[in-house]
């Protein structure tokens, strides 16, 4: 793990609860994100994976302060930005940007591409040397678009091109960290590769750090240095990519990885089928949140919440009392049906 001085983004105990009301009475809260700890170093990519509804997007939005965290702290470049106001946040906005999932919703249909990409500059009152127009054209060129398309409107572009425009907008302020919220899941597979390669080139050239939110594990493996696996608002396992992909310790990680379609293997090789649904975040299970679907669950899992610590000699951190330790494909104990 990184030492605290060199981490660009430091998140501790990050929590977001959405209150649920019935009439005027509060009726509990959806615990969308429930105590996350992670660090992102400069120039590093952290993949945030998990199934739908596990709190990935909520986390991303809290990082760029589109949502107000319920508790916990977000430190960026050594400064606490958890509850910073707009004015105080302004210099940091330039270092912290977001790329959205849906390239059709994230561009204002009434603005030209030039205006869209220039928006962050204008909002922050920045006048780059050579003028805004020149800077915008540089950015368009940087993301592989024709700078002559400055005056066109978003509806004249394809999905992949639109996503490139969104990336150019995020780059306009020369950020240090970009939160990419499923940047390729709305695109065709062939376009996905192009956009991912673009992001990787940009990362190399501009020394960007990414928090890369995705549910496509193959894309994450291709792009991320480190991976955090989320389940029901918590990180269940976090570590370097190779550790996570080759020696996953948490049963959930193992089940997720076994679900990646493998074109080289014949037949359903070692696919772990999880039974049942994800429990409701309104009332998550006691102890380990994954225990209701885990084939290794014991009584201890219901009473004692496992801490996110290194387990059984692995380099990664896993939140499990009974971690797996073999290479992927080998399950240490037979899957057992667990009644909910």
């Amino acid at each position, binding site marked *: 793990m990184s030492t605290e001085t060199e981490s660009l983004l430091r998140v501790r105990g990050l929590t977001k609860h959405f209150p649920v009301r019935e009439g005027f009475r509060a009726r509990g809260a959806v615990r969308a994100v429930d105590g996350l700890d992670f660090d992102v170093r400069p120039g590093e990519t952290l993949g945030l994976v998990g199934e739908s509804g596990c709190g990935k997007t909520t986390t991303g939005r809290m990082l*760029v*302060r*589109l949502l107000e965290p319920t508790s916990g702290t977000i430190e960026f470049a050594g400064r606490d930005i958890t509850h910073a106001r*707009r004015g105080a*946040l*302004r210099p940091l*906005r330039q270092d912290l*940007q*977001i790329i*959205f*999932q*849906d390239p*059709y*919703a*994230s*561009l*204002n*249909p*009434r*603005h*030209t591409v030039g205006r*869209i990409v220039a*928006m*962050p500059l204008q*909002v*922050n009152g920045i006048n780059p040397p050579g003028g805004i127009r020149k800077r915008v054209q540089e950015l368009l060129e940087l993301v592989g678009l024709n700078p*002559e*398309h400055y*005056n*066109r*409107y978003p*509806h*004249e572009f394809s999905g992949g091109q639109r996503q490139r425009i*969104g990336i150019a*907008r995020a780059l306009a*302020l020369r950020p240090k960290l970009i939160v990419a919220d499923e940047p390729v899941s709305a695109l065709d597979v062939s376009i996905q590769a192009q956009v991912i390669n673009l992001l990787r080139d940009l990362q190399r050239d501009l020394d960007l750090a990414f928090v890369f939110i995705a549910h496509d594990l193959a894309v994450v493996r291709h792009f991320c240095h480190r991976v955090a696996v989320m389940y029901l608002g918590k990180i269940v396992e976090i570590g370097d990519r190779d550790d996570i992909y080759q020696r996953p310790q948490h049963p959930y990680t193992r089940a997720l990885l076994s679900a990646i379609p493998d074109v080289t293997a014949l037949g359903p090789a070692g696919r772990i089928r999880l039974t049942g649904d994800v429990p409701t975040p309104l009332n998550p299970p006691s102890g380990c949140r994954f225990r209701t679907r885990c084939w290794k669950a014991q009584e201890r899992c219901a009473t004692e919440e496992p801490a996110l610590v290194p387990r059984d000699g692995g380099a990664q951190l896993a939140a499990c009392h009974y971690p797996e330790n073999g290479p992927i494909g080998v399950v240490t104990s037979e899957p057992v049906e667990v009644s909910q």
Partner: protein
Amino acid sequence: MSLSPVEGAARAEMEPAADPVKPDEQGIVGRSPGQLAWARLRRDRTAMVSGVVLVLFVVLALAAPLIAKLYGVGPNEQFQQLLDGNGMPLGYVGGITGDHWFGLEPRLGRDIFIRMIYGMRTSLFIAFAAALVTTAIGVAAGILAGFLGGIVDTVISWITDVALALPFLIFALAVVPTVGLRFYGPREEVPPAFQVIVLIGIFAAFGWTSTARLVRGQVISLREREFVEAARASGAGLGHMLFRQLLPNLWAPILVAFSLAVPSYITGEAALSFLGIGILEPTADFGRMIFQSIPYLQTDPAYVFFPGVTIFILVLAFNLLGDALRDALDPKSSR
């Protein structure tokens, strides 16, 4: 789909149809959604015809004093010598002659053509001013309610509901004379400008609600869109998000609402004048002209005919243009 037509227009604006750009127009400069709508409007013959008719009416109304000069007859000139002993115009069809194209009013003997031109000026001015004021109030209220939500939304929506619940005509009948009496004595003459302001005010007080509701709904559907969030993530303030990001996406429904509001205020103003609480003599006005012509329906039908047909054409042209505008802004709506 249970969208109101105006909402439909707005939806389509948000997802502009990917019109294949014709090869000869494929320059480097892209065509904005507005330009595409204008091109569609140009191809619509109904829209063009009603547009030309409206421009003609507006030019006539604006040039009323000039026309009076060319025509040689003023709006308040009386031609008693052209009336018979019963006060009915001499000659055929209400006294149509080369000097008086649409004939004369019975009893007072004023020229109908020039009074209609002046009446149109009153009507169009009140209707446009009322539509502008109501649209401005409605957009401001709707955008604030929709974007800020919470308590602001609750309060504005509540006021909207109350304003919608009040019966317009009864309220107008009660308020207009009272306001006149408040500022001017019972024997004093109320100046026409004051009457006009009172009318615009009463239209504004009741008319903003529908625009406000429309805009509020649009803003609620737009504010969660990611381009607004992108602006917020870049540190944009409230003003930027409302006026730079949201407002350009609201022009289509606002324009359609405006173009359909104008004819409703023309008829509304005519109705109030018909009921005797609008514009008073001697200012020329469509509604009152029709009101005064009713007793002569049998003896002098031409008196009813000309103002009636003119107001009909005016309102029809506005409504057709509004519909065409909606079609042009929303190419997906089926006819």
